[in-house]
């Protein structure tokens, strides 16, 4: 239910970016930080796509995914003696063979960044035969990058300010939450999953920091060290010995302190 609520404020995205791609059966990727609403959008896409279509998740095992694929398309599995096998009893190999016999299926993959090497091998085969539509976080493994080639990347941004209040109201209404709607709307910074967690009273503000939201300004300190090094050469130009000595001492301290900075920046 809250997957549908989570689509509040995404009308423009659905109309302008997603709907025509689904109609044309074009491969694309939804990219965004955790809790921004990728899965909700992907499920909406799945609901509005034409058959044949499958919804998989990279956080499941290969076997579970292949079974889901076969079940969704109602594939018949036959062993080498020509006998029918039940999907639940088939080996991974038999499942894979069956999956590769069909083509041009819309495959929706959630948690794409969590793909394991053995699943990536199957995904490569699928990418040649089917259309992949994936939801992923911005940082992905190198192995997955070739799969993303040619996919149009759609960045999902946090919700705009004007929709936050509406979404927070919808969540609180749905859950019967007593938390202040305004507080949820402002503290969530536009992340629907965070709003939901707050409305449920499950999360505090500090526990909900998401990677990519923070901007580390410590490289500015490296810039300051570079300026200290530059002071020495400026002093040569000005012919001022005391400034030269000071710049030299500063540069020495800075070049030593930079190792600590690197540590802090990791």
């Amino acid at each position: 239910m809250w997957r549908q609520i989570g689509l509040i404020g995404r009308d423009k995205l659905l109309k302008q970016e997603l709907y025509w791609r689904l109609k044309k059966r074009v491969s694309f990727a939804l990219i965004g930080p955790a809790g921004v609403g990728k899965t909700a959008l992907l499920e909406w896409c799945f609901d509005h796509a034409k058959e044949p279509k499958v919804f998989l998740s990279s956080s499941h095992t290969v076997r579970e995914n292949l079974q889901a694929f076969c079940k969704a398309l109602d594939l018949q599995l036959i062993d080498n003696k020509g006998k029918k096998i039940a999907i639940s009893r088939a080996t991974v190999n038999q499942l894979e063979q069956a999956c590769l016999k069909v083509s041009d299926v819309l495959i929706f993959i959630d948690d794409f960044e969590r793909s394991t090497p053995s699943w990536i091998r199957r995904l490569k085969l699928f990418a040649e035969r089917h259309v992949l539509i994936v939801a992923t976080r911005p940082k992905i493994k190198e192995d997955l990058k070739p799969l993303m080639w040619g996919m149009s990347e759609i960045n999902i941004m946090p919700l705009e300010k004007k929709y936050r209040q509406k979404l927070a109201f919808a969540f609180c209404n749905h859950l019967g939450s007593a938390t202040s709607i305004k507080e949820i709307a402002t503290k969530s910074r536009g992340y629907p999953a965070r709003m939901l967690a707050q409305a449920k009273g499950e999360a505090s503000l500090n526990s909900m920091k998401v990677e990519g939201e923070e901007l580390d300004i410590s490289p500015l300190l490296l810039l300051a060290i570079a300026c200290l090094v530059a002071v020495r050469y400026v002093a040569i130009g000005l012919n001022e010995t005391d400034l030269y000595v000071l710049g030299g001492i500063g540069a020495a301290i800075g070049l030593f302190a930079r190792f600590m900075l690197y540590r802090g920046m990791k």
Partner: protein
Amino acid sequence: MIAVTHVTFAGFLGFLAGLTPQKAALLGLGALLPDLDHPRSFLGRAFFYVSIPLHHFLGHRKAFHGFPLWIAFTALGYFKPEIYLVGLGAISHILLDCWNISGVQALEPFSERVLVLFSRKYRIATGSSTEYILLICLLFLTAGTTKVNAIGGFRGLVAYITASPKIALQQYKSKGPEICYLSGKLRWKNGEIEQISAQIVGLEGFNGVALRLDDRLVHVPAQANLLKARLKCSGQKYETLRLTGFAKTLTEAYFFDGKAWRFAKPENYVFGQILGSKLSLEMIEIDGESHL
């Protein structure tokens, strides 16, 4: 960060830049201002009628902690320099707050990115024991920098520690006609080394200086070399005068004859560029013609 840390940090930066205590206090005041958006902060409690609405409309560590606001405020310092210092203090507050675990949304209202300093593991929680260690370090550093300021900032400290004659003379050049003293070691041409404290008369030649030692002038490097020298300025200035002819001086005076400085006792004749503490000259007439 707590209010004391912010004030100490701003004060430290002020003393580092060589500001007077009054100006550093303005920086400290500026460092308190951004926390007005929290009703339980130091200033927020005193001015609750400001802080409560601010917290309600803007929230804590958001637009009121933003670079756009405080940089614009600092730019107003173009009209009044005090505002400039207060604005810089506020910016130091924001930078230090970035070191907090929660960071600052300092680009509000343009962006919601949270500005932080270092990764989470190396950040400091407000009011934690780590912050008190930082505060103690800052207090020591501030006390140290006030001492350093008394001898002319870090550049003065370098000159004091190295006691380099080169630096002392470069400093003297920038002082103008101020009466300054050199203390240090002098090596005479015959090899003797003497500890001196002498008044500087003036510069001569390429890198030379004339010093008044007791009742005579010493020309460096013609008569002696400086091994170590520290400059001390009195704050008073020489009176200067340029003569086209000759005159008789009634007080002690120094004059530059084109190559080196000379010393003239009362009733002696002087010409050229004249220096002295209280100059008093008498016109002389040769064949009924004034030569002053």
